């Protein structure tokens, strides 16, 4: 069944100016991602993966081209409207977790709820931690958690406002392959059970192959966009389409 397009990029370019030198990070990228898709983005260092993720996540704006998110043209939005989208529509997971030190896992997860002015924050934060299997670590500080646990806290934080999109920029980049696999399993489960649109960047061919679609970037250009045949490893979580 063809699902509605949730993210649509048309001819999106990004140019960074650092002093006199202009760096072209993205060249005319056009792509569609449908609601409920599980997509990985691959490419060598400097190919523009992170830039693309930041634009998709409304953390950064394209220099030219158009990006529609849920039918809204992101380029037209004000700072506050972008903040609202980041708050409610998108969950973002970083390679280096970006947890606040000196605050507990629970408080870290609660933080986005403060900005969405949600009620019953403690309950919802605990639910989100439970969803990533860390309910028993709620009172621990980031320094008391392993890398995998920290990344799970970060995922819980991304989930807590119940966004429809989960974006992850090399979420397993700092983890060993076993722990990385556990994180990927969480993404797969969220995609399968909650219908979340999940996009993650990875260097690992194996991890990329556990999605349904791999987008490849090379020097800021779209270098490939392929569907992946269902694998045993990728379907463990129970893809509804099988």
């Amino acid at each position, binding site marked *: 069944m063809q699902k509605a397009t949730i993210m649509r990029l048309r001819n999106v370019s990004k140019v960074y100016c650092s002093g006199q030198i202009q760096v072209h990070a993205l060249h005319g990228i056009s792509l569609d991602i449908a609601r409920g898709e599980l997509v990985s983005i691959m490419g060598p260092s400097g190919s523009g993966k992170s830039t693309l993720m930041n634009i998709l996540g409304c953390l*950064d704006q394209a220099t030219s081209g158009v990006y529609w998110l849920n039918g809204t043209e992101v380029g037209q939005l004000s700072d506050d409207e972008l903040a609202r989208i980041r708050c409610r529509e998108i969950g973002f997971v970083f390679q280096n977790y970006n947890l606040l030190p000196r605050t507990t896992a629970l408080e870290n997860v609660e933080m986005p709820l403060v900005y969405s002015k949600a009620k019953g924050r403690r309950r919802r934060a605990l639910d989100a931690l439970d969803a990533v299997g860390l309910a028993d670590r709620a009172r621990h500080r980031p320094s008391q958690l392993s890398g995998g646990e920290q990344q799970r806290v970060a995922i819980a934080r991304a989930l807590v406002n119940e966004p429809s999109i989960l974006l992850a920029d090399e979420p397993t980049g700092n983890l060993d392959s076993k722990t990385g696999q556990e994180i990927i399993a969480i993404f797969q489960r969220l995609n399968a059970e909650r219908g979340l649109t999940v996009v993650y960047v990875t260097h690992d061919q194996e991890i990329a192959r556990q999605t349904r679609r791999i987008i490849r970037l090379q020097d800021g250009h779209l270098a490939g966009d392929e569907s992946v045949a269902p694998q045993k490893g990728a379907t463990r979580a129970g893809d509804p389409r099988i």
Partner: protein
Amino acid sequence: MNLLQNVHVALHALSANKLRASLTMLGIIIGVGAVVALLSIGQGAQAAILGEIEGIGSNLIFVMPGTVNMGAALGEGSTASEVLTLEDAMTIARQGNCPDCSAVAPQYDHGAEIVYHNASMYTTVTGTTPAYQQVRNFEMHLGQFFSDQDVGVAARVAVIGADVADELFGPEDPLGKIVRINRVPFRVIGVLSKEGAGALLSRDRAVVVPLSAATRLFGRDSISGEGSQIVTRINVSAIDASRIESAIAQITEVLQQRRGTAAEHEDFSVTSLKDLADVTSSVTQVLTIFLAAIAAISLVVGGIGIMNTMLVSVMERTREIGLRKAVGARRSDILIQFLIEAVVLSLAGGAVGILIGVGISGLVSLSGVFAARLSLQSILLATGFSIAVGVFFGIYPAQRAARLSPIEALRYE
């Protein structure tokens, strides 16, 4: 984010670097402490001086020879060549001349040596009438004031101040004892109650005798060229405080008539203690404002300290700001967060400063010179000032934090 959460976050952030936070607050602590202490000391001093003047008799009006100033009024005398005489005083006192005056007491002052056995002292002897006790609000510690009859017969009786009694008699009871004023014996019939150090026009060193007795005692010195009794000063008390102005006008008029002088070159002056009180309070007010202004400068310096700390804090927490923005914080959320942190810093400093200021004014009161007056106003003023300092100096760092782009902030090392 509501206020309480913001305060919670701010306290959390500040507690991460307690030494830096306390050092930053020090400027505000000193500034607010100084403002509170100086205002309460200034107001206390003013109240003390006004109370003093009240004690002398706030309805009191002085008539002095020449055109005198306030300093001369306090210095008990003038160097003017014109003189006032007993007749002037009697004119003021005459029924119907000054309906707003309740009592008139001329006084003649002359320095003299007082001796009792081996003890002696040099002080000002005042010759006057019994009305003097009323116009000067004199309270008797022992004995009584002299009477009209004493004045009539030029009785050699004296009423002495508490310090005079102490110096001449020590523990002995002075009543009924004979002292010698310029070798003339006078009998002590009363001792005035003690007023204490620092009083204006203190009565503690006074020796008061009947005017007629003083005239005999000092002889030619107290008689003018025309043969009239000279008075140093005429004390008049108005019926009540609201009649002071009209009483002054009446006195001025009758004296101008009697002495035949025009308003342009009066050879006497009429002033009330209220004038003196007004001058005093405006002087202490200016002084208080001046001191408070100096204290306010240290508040500004403290504010700059807060700004500095907040700028460092914003830089250190760039990644945190980026993260907060990435998960949906708006500019205003970040702005308010850092603004509240600055205000918490300055308000905490203000609170400690108020405690210190209260402590200092308490110490001043304990020292016994005068009671510092701690007003709610000065505390509210200090609190308001510290909030204002926090907002004023916190807004720039907070704006810098709010303007950070999430992506650049997250990338910041």
